[in-house]
């Protein structure tokens, strides 16, 4: 599936520029924190042009192998390609931005 143009329109819910999948395992504090942090992040940086899918591995354990999930929570950027992964509860916005290629690693300390 090719990503559509950068148009931020809200036409079909499927044709979003950002397609993210968040893997969690049950309703642990980390999982809940990750879901909450992701929501805040998307609202702030992805201006509505995104789609989030939350996969609970306790319900669908077979899905873990597909995206090579080891750590929980893991956020997988399915689109735009290439696939990127961010692990952790997404509490550090800076790393999430880097992980999603929204910001180059500027920290040159």
């Amino acid at each position, binding site marked *: 599936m090719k990503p559509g143009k950068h148009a931020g329109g809200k036409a079909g819910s499927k044709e979003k520029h950002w397609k993210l999948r968040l893997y969690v395992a049950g309703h642990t504090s*980390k999982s809940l924190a990750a879901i909450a942090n992701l929501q805040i992040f998307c609202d702030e940086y992805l201006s509505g042009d995104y789609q989030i899918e939350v996969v609970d591995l306790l319900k669908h354990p077979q899905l873990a192998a597909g995206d090579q999930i080891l750590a929980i929570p893991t956020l997988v950027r399915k689109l735009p390609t290439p696939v990127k992964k961010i692990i952790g509860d997404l509490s550090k916005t800076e*790393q999430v931005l880097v992980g999603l290629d929204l910001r180059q690693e500027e920290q040159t300390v």
Partner: protein
Amino acid sequence: MSSAKSKGKTGLGIEKCPTGIRGLDEIMLGGLPKGRPTLVAGSAGSGKTVLAMEFLARGAAEFHENGVYMAFEETGQDLIENTASFGFNLPELCARKKILLDHVHVDRSEIEESGAYSLEGLFVRLENAIKTVNAKRVVLDTIETLFSGFSNESILRAELARLFRWLKTAGVTAVITGESGDGLLTRHGLEEYVADCVIVLDHRVAEQTSIRRLRVMKYRGSLHGTNEYAFLIGKKGISVLPITSLHLDHEASKARISTGIPRLDTMLDGKGFYRGSSVLLSGGAGTGKSSISANFVRAACERGERALYFASEQSPSEIIRNMNSIGIELARWAAKGLLRFHAARPTLVGLEQHLVLLHEVITEFAPAVVVIDPITNFGAAGNAMEVKSMLTRIIDFLKERQITGFFTSLTAANSNPEESEVGISSQIDTWLLLRNLESNGERNRALYVLKSRGMAHSNQIREFVLTSRGVELLDVYIGSGGVLTGTARAAQEAQEQASVLAEKQELERKRAELSRRRVELKERIEALHWDFRSEEEKILTCMRQIEERERQVARHRLDMAHLRRADAANANGHRTRNVRA
């Protein structure tokens, strides 16, 4: 393996999970600790993956225990290809849902970390995989790769500790591999977490030959062999060799087998070797060691038994040709499949690996007799200690299987074999010695039995002759000049024959003389008789003449008297009458 049987005996402690790897279960007295994780540590290329894979493959194929292989380094396809050469049929085992290969890909470059996380995903995957095939065995190869994939080491360590606890509660027997480096058992100290059982693999090169070794460093709750054991990665996976078997409890057979040389059987109490005993034949170069070996092998084949001939100096075709020249036809038995040659130089692969090869071939061929010609060649591949330990292991191994071991040993020309082989002599049941006897400008072979346990054996030295009909043993001549062999013996025999003949002739002559004398005597007696008779005749004639004359005289006197008319009473006439009476 036989060790699997002994498991019950020693099973007072923890339950064991047999690996099916030859030798390893023996060292570990039954196998890995069941339901617990075991760490297999070793440097790169030391055989960790093969060991882990064999544990799973044999578990699935032989012990009906399915397995999960979680590979952190190699992909499933790589694993299948890399282990195909060991005869594990992974594709089939995977297709039949006996083994599940799961490749866990960890790439640091793809991963960004943001905040706290756990490795629950790994747990979920592992649990799912275990459930899918109902696995009893799990391999994690090598979990240390995770350390390169995640930067937060404290999280990782906590999660690993949790993983191993979880594995224990899941009741699976797990093998975790770890790469050693920097003088540490594992780079990241996995042994902290897997403390129940630790196996260390080592691959080193000594004098240009590589040697693989294995050691059970730790085994909680169980006895285990603590030595370093050599192992080989061969065509059928791993074979581990215990230096010595842990117990000396092989059965002693009372059955006897022929040596292939009737006279030699006679020397050994008339029946030959004990089955399952170890025989050493030592002698110098050219004393006929191989010929006696070939005789022994042929005798075994003629009984319909399998014989295995390890040759480290001659190729099979050379042996067959050379033995043909003394009337021992081996090609026939080789063609029948009763005789197998295995020719290899021990120096090629190193002593330990050579030993593993011997084990493999013996296990596969299951012979009744094994000839190793010569064992002295092992010395070229290792030092005396190693050779001794190797022979101990071979002998143990053969005895355990009731295989008669026949070893030849080359002794230096002038050395005393009883001294030079003191190292192994105690393990030998029957020791035959071949000697070269040099005298009168020729060399002859002599054979004697130095020792033979459990039988009344001959103390005689026999001359040993190679003829076109095979090996023959002859009595030696023992005379004033010592033991005589070869032409000296023949000469002595001829001399004896000559003197016997001479005596016979002398007797004949004497007998003839006696009869001649008897004839002579008779003749002489006869002649005397004749003499006597003629004399007697003569004398009698003379007497008669005298008497006649007297009578005539008397008559004449009477006539005269008559004429003279003399008196009748005449003295002369009276006397004459008396004489006539």
